[in-house]
C-alpha cells in the first residue's frame, strides 16, 4: 500500500477497527489518489451515519432493544448448559440476575484454564482438579461411631490418600482445625495415631449421645482437601487443552492453586470478579455474561446497548443494580424516583427532607407537562427573518 495513504489513514479520526479494516481492503488493490480520496470521503460519510445523533434517548433505545427480545426468552429453565454435567441457570432468570447485580448467582460456576504444562496432560489436569474440588473426610477412609467408649474413630485409607496426593499427616492436622474454624464446633478433643492411620475424636460431654452424633456428623463432612466453596470439578478437553469446569465459585482461592492460568480463569459471579479483579473487569464480565445469555437463546442484541447498561452499572466504582436499590433509586430528581417504584415513600421522604426538584430530567418534565430535554426538545433555535 502507498505509505502516504497509510499515513492519512492512521491520522484520520476513525475507530481503530475501521482503520484496520480499511487498510486490509485497500492493501491488495492499486488505487489512485483520486480514488483514495473518494474512498476516505465515503468512509467518513458512512461513519458519520453510524454515530448516534445528539440528544438521542440512548437509554430508552437500549431498554427497548434488550426488553423486547427478552420477552421471547424462556421463563424458567434449568439447563444442563451443554458443558459437561454442570447445571447453569440460563435464560430470563440469569439475565435478571445479571441486571440485579446479585451478590452471588444461583448457580455459581467457574471455567478454569490451566498453564501449558498442565493443560496438555490429562493426569496433571486431574491433579489440579483434586487441589480444587472440596473433598470430605469420609472420602478418605472409614468413620466409625463407638457408642460404648464414646468416641469417633477415623481409619484413613492410604491408597486413596496417595492417589489424591495428600499426606496422612496433613489430613490429621487439618481435620480437627477445620472443624473448629469452619464448622464452628469446638466441644471435642482429638488424638492422632499416624502409625495405625487412625484419628480419634472425643466429645467433651461424655454423657450425651446427642453430642457424639453431632460430632460424628462434623467429622464426616469436614473438608480436608480442596477449596471450600467448590463442590464439583469436571475435567474436559476443549480445543486441544484440558479445562476445568466447576460447580461453586471462589476466584481468589483458585488463583492460589498451582497450575491454574491466572490470566484466563473466570467465574460467572460478577460481584466476585469486580472484587478480585476490579471494576473494569466487572464491566467486562457484565457485557460477556449478558451477551452470552442472550446469544444462547438465539437472540442477537447489539453490544452497544449492553455496553451502555454495563457502563451505567459500573459508573460509581462498584457494580450497582438497575432498579430501586441502585441506579433508579439514586437519581437526583424526586419525581423521577417516585415515578419508578414505591411512590409514596419517596414523596414522603422528600417532603420530610425538604428536597427540591429542579425539573431537569425527562420523567419530571413529562409529569408536570413541559417539553422534555431530548431530541428536538433540547434544541433552541431562533430564526432571524430576512425581509
Amino acid at each position, binding site marked *: 500500500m502507498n505509505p502516504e495513504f497509510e499515513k492519512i489513514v492512521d491520522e484520520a479520526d476513525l475507530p481503530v477497527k475501521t482503520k484496520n479494516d480499511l487498510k486490509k481492503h485497500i492493501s491488495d488493490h492499486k488505487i489512485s489518489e483520486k480514488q483514495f480520496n473518494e474512498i476516505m470521503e465515503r468512509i467518513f460519510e458512512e461513519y458519520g451515519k453510524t454515530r448516534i445523533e445528539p440528544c438521542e434517548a440512548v437509554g430508552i433505545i437500549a431498554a427497548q432493544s434488550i426488553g423486547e427480545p427478552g420477552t421471547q426468552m424462556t421463563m424458567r429453565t434449568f439447563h444442563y448448559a451443554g458443558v459437561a454435567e454442570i447445571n447453569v441457570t440460563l435464560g430470563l432468570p440469569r439475565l435478571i440476575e445479571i441486571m440485579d447485580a446479585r451478590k452471588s448467582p444461583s448457580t455459581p460456576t467457574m471455567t478454569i484454564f490451566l498453564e501449558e504444562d498442565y493443560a496438555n496432560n490429562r493426569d496433571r489436569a486431574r491433579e489440579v482438579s483434586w487441589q480444587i474440588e472440596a473433598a470430605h473426610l469420609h472420602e478418605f477412609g472409614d468413620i466409625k461411631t463407638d457408642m460404648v467408649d464414646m468416641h469417633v474413630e477415623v481409619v484413613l485409607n492410604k491408597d486413596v490418600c496417595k492417589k489424591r496426593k495428600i499426606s496422612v499427616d496433613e489430613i490429621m492436622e487439618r481435620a480437627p482445625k477445620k472443624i473448629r474454624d469452619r464448622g464452628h464446633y469446638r466441644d471435642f478433643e482429638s488424638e492422632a495415631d499416624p502409625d495405625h492411620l487412625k484419628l480419634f475424636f472425643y466429645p467433651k460431654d461424655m454423657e450425651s449421645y446427642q453430642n457424639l452424633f453431632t460430632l460424628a456428623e462434623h467429622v464426616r463432612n469436614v473438608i480436608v482437601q480442596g477449596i471450600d466453596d467448590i463442590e464439583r470439578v469436571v475435567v474436559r478437553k476443549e480445543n486441544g487443552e484440558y479445562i476445568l469446569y466447576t460447580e461453586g465459585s471462589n476466584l481468589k482461592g483458585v488463583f*492460589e492453586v498451582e497450575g491454574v492460568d491466572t490470566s484466563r480463569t473466570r467465574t460467572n459471579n460478577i460481584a466476585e470478579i469486580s472484587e478480585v479483579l476490579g471494576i473494569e473487569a466487572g464491566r467486562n464480565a457484565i457485557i460477556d455474561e449478558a451477551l452470552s445469555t442472550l446469544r444462547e437463546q438465539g437472540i442477537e442484541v447489539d453490544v452497544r446497548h449492553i455496553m451502555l447498561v454495563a457502563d451505567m452499572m459500573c459508573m460509581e466504582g462498584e457494580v450497582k443494580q438497575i432498579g430501586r436499590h441502585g441506579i433508579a433509586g439514586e437519581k437526583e430528581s424526586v419525581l423521577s424516583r417516585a415515578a419508578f417504584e414505591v411512590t409514596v415513600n419517596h414523596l414522603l421522604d422528600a417532603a420530610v427532607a425538604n428536597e427540591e426538584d429542579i425539573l431537569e430530567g425527562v420523567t419530571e418534565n413529562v409529569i408536570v407537562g413541559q417539553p422534555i430535554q431530548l431530541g428536538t426538545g433540547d434544541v433552541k433555535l431562533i430564526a432571524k427573518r430576512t425581509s
Partner: protein
Amino acid sequence: MSTKFSVIGHMMVPDHQIMSVEEVDDLLTSYKITRDQLPKVYHDDPSVKEIGAKINDVIRIVRNSQTAGRAEAYRQVVKRPKK
C-alpha cells in the same frame, strides 16, 4: 496470593494508566466537563492498587472495544464510602 498473580495480566482487565495533570486538564477542556462528572473507581480497587494510583488521580483505561477495536475511558479515583 501467589507472586506471579497480577490483576492487570488478566484477560478481563484492560490497561490502566495514571494520567498527568496536563493530560487531565486537556481531557476536561475537550469534553467541557468538571472532574466530578467523570466515572469513578474506588481507591481500594485491585487494579488501582496495582498501578499505585492515589485518591483524586485520573486513570486512563484503554479498553478492547468490540465495536471500535480500541476505546479510551477515564475514571477518577475516589475513596470508598463507608457503609
